[in-house]
């Protein structure tokens, strides 16, 4: 299986030194367990992502781009040439200039499915079995065929230790990026310092016992708790149930009563 791991120039959350984001180091570990992997970095400098060479990658391709240039066209062109069976990326960046959209934009450009928040994977006969995190420890197992883009969840196994000797043996290969067709319009963003805020739990009871508040906080009451399990229902009934549920939680407007004035 041929795997491409997307590597971004991140920063350490505390020290601010250029580092490989932890999620991508976890992606490298996943890739190392699946097959032959190559790292792919588009940006001005590959020094920070070279850490991945010590953590399980043997080779990194560096597409040299100017500071601030959109990496998606260059990555899409290179991935089109490499045609890997699996593209791995972190689910979000870490401290660098990132939008979190690159995997999605790539999947769209390459016309590939994207599976987010994966914590484990194993290869089958031409298929790939992926465990996707649904949050709070819940997992969903997916079996996919054909090339996919996968983003990695923080619950994936911790990154491999950095081995200086391996990093020394790995190679960073400069690849000339395909000329970009047009520059993408910049997304208008506002930057302001992070301020820690209390987490608001919707519909949390102000009083009540600790157990009740815990239930409210972990979502074991309310809409989730009041759900019903239907086993092999009639498609009509199932559709009706879904509609009723969507109306209940306010996604759909309530039905106009037949005898409406």
């Amino acid at each position, binding site marked *: 299986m041929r795997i491409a791991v997307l590597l971004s120039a991140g920063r350490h959350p*505390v020290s601010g030194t250029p580092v490989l984001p932890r999620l991508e180091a976890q992606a490298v570990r996943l890739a190392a367990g699946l097959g032959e992997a190559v790292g792919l970095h588009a940006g001005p400098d590959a020094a920070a992502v070279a850490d991945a060479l010590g953590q399980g990658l043997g080779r990194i391709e560096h597409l040299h781009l100017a500071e601030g240039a959109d990496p998606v066209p260059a990555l899409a062109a290179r991935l089109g040439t490499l045609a890997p069976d699996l593209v791995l990326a972190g689910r979000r960046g870490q401290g660098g200039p990132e939008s979190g959209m690159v995997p999605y934009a790539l999947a769209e450009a390459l016309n590939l499915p994207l599976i987010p928040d994966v914590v484990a994977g194993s290869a089958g006969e031409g298929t790939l079995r992926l465990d996707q995190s649904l949050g709070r420890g819940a997992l969903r197992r997916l079996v996919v065929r054909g090339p996919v883009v996968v983003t990695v969840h923080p619950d994936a196994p911790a990154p491999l230790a950095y081995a200086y000797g391996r990093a020394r043996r790995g190679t960073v290969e400069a690849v000339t990026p395909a000329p970009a067709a047009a520059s993408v319009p910049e997304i208008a963003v506002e930057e302001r310092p992070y301020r820690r805020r209390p987490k608001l739990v919707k519909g949390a009871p102000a009083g009540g016992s600790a157990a009740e508040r815990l239930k409210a906080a972990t979502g074991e009451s309310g809409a989730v708790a009041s759900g019903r399990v239907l086993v092999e229902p009639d498609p009509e009934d199932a559709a009706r149930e879904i509609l009723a549920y969507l109306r209940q939680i306010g996604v759909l407007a309530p039905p106009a009563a037949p005898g409406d004035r």
Partner: protein
Amino acid sequence: MTSLMPLTTVFPGLVWLMAALALVQGLRRAALWRVGAAAPVAWLDGLAKLPRRYLVDVHHVVARNAYASRMHAVVAGGLLAASILTALAILPPIAGFRPYWLVVALAFGVTAIGSLLVGARRYPEKQKRLSAGRFQILPFLLVAYAVGGTATALLLALGVGGVFAPLALALAAAGGLGLAFEVRHGPMRHAAAGALHLVAHPRPGRFEGRPDTALQPLDLDAPRLGSEMPADFTWNRLLSYDACVSCGRCEIACPAFAAGQPLNPKKLIQDLVAGLSPAEPAYAGNPYPGGRAGEGERGPLARLIGPDARIHPDTLWSCTTCRACVEECPMMIEHVDAVVSLRRHETLERGALPEKAVGPVTELRQAGEPGGRPLAARTDFAAGLDLPLMAGRERAAVLLWLGEGAYDLRYGRTLRALVRLLREAGVDFAVLGPEERDTGDLARRLGDEATFQALARENVATLRKYRFERIVTADPHALHALRNEYPAFGGRFAVIHHTAFLLELIRGGKLNPGRLPDLAVTYHDPCYLARYNGETEAPRAVLDAIGVARSEMARSGRRAMCCGGGGGAPVSDVPGERRIPDLRMAQAAETGAGIVAVACPSCTAMLEGVPDRRAEIRDVAELLLQAVEAGR
């Protein structure tokens, strides 16, 4: 004698034959050392100093066990004297002089007494720390050679021959040739390899009266990093492992062995010996706790570390690098160097750090601090205290190196006490604050030499920006790195431990402590202060100056037991049957002291973490501050 040659020729000839056989056996073994890497050895210097190293340095260690010392004086001295005297008798004028043979008989007689002393350690029951196997036949060989030699020499002295002479000679020949044969694989190897090891010792500095304990820097551009197989060690290291006589003194001293973690220093060295050659006889001492037998391939190019190799990774990561084994080793073997060299390969080439150690080492590499905390938060412990920063003033008499302990809430109390004492004494000091990175001690002991060297260079560059006379630190691990290991990276600083500095202040009249006679205190020596730097007196002198009732644990000073906090052992966290700090606190409880005085953040954390302890853990600085406040 009725044979062609007279006994006066045959007997010395036997000794010459023994010497030749020993030489052949020794050379067969020595051929294996040649697979090792090259090492610079000052041959002439080493040879000239051999007698002194043997009679002073080795004797100093051996004599800790008076029986072993006397036994060696008699048996080794007698054996050498008797053999050399007999060998000289190959010259006819000497051989014909009957009183000479009386002297020879006397020398053999002394050897015979020594042989019985050797045997008494092994029969009827072997001492527990000793190895069995080929060592068990040693007393018989010695007795045969000594008794046969005595009888032959007596017959020559009396000038009688007859039927007894061939019998006595045969007995001496069986014992003597057996001993010579044992030079390759058996017990007698320790004599030959041990002598050569003293000449070609990889750390000659330790015989010059100074602690030569800094790990040697690793060339990060070398084609292979660390030691994967026996051939990766330098030849004189391979020689040093062959010097091991399996006496087991290291295993008694080893804290990991005592705690039932899978490490036995003797077995580790014997695994390195056995790994070198498949022909090596089976190990016959105590196994690694857990009883794992040696498995896997053997040979100069066979992998040493692995779940399926001679040494399990857990064995490697159990070591606290406390140097207790090195301190106790009568053959002057450097166990810790071997452990670190093997760890370097595991970490640098294979990335095979213990799972729990990966996080701290990664943070060290990326954030300069094993907890991944902001460097500026290091001075948070001093909230409310006036702690001047070096950056604001460029120079100070004393630079206070805070170290890793500053982040720890408990140890913050100690540092606050130290800062208040420095204020009280009017010391002109400053800290680096956010410019202080970790010394990299943890990374280095865990084999991550690359991270250590990067941190060392950054710290040296920071320190060289400022003007100060001395560095004072309360962390012996930082002290060892700054004082002994940073010189290799261009940083030569005068570094002093806080206990020594506080003693200076007391003696200089800057601090006038009152007396605390009601406190019963026992002092726990940190390994990196006592064994790595030979400093055991200053903390005790401070405690005596404040008049506490001080008692000593059975193991103290340079022979103290580790708290379990060194060498990355707390982050590697290899499971054992007991915990090392629990054992140490039990030893402290034997003294009956209500306070265990410490002088190291690791010891503080490890010993405070012991459940059900009766004694309080107090740093020397905290006790001194209490005394100073009482004296006001």
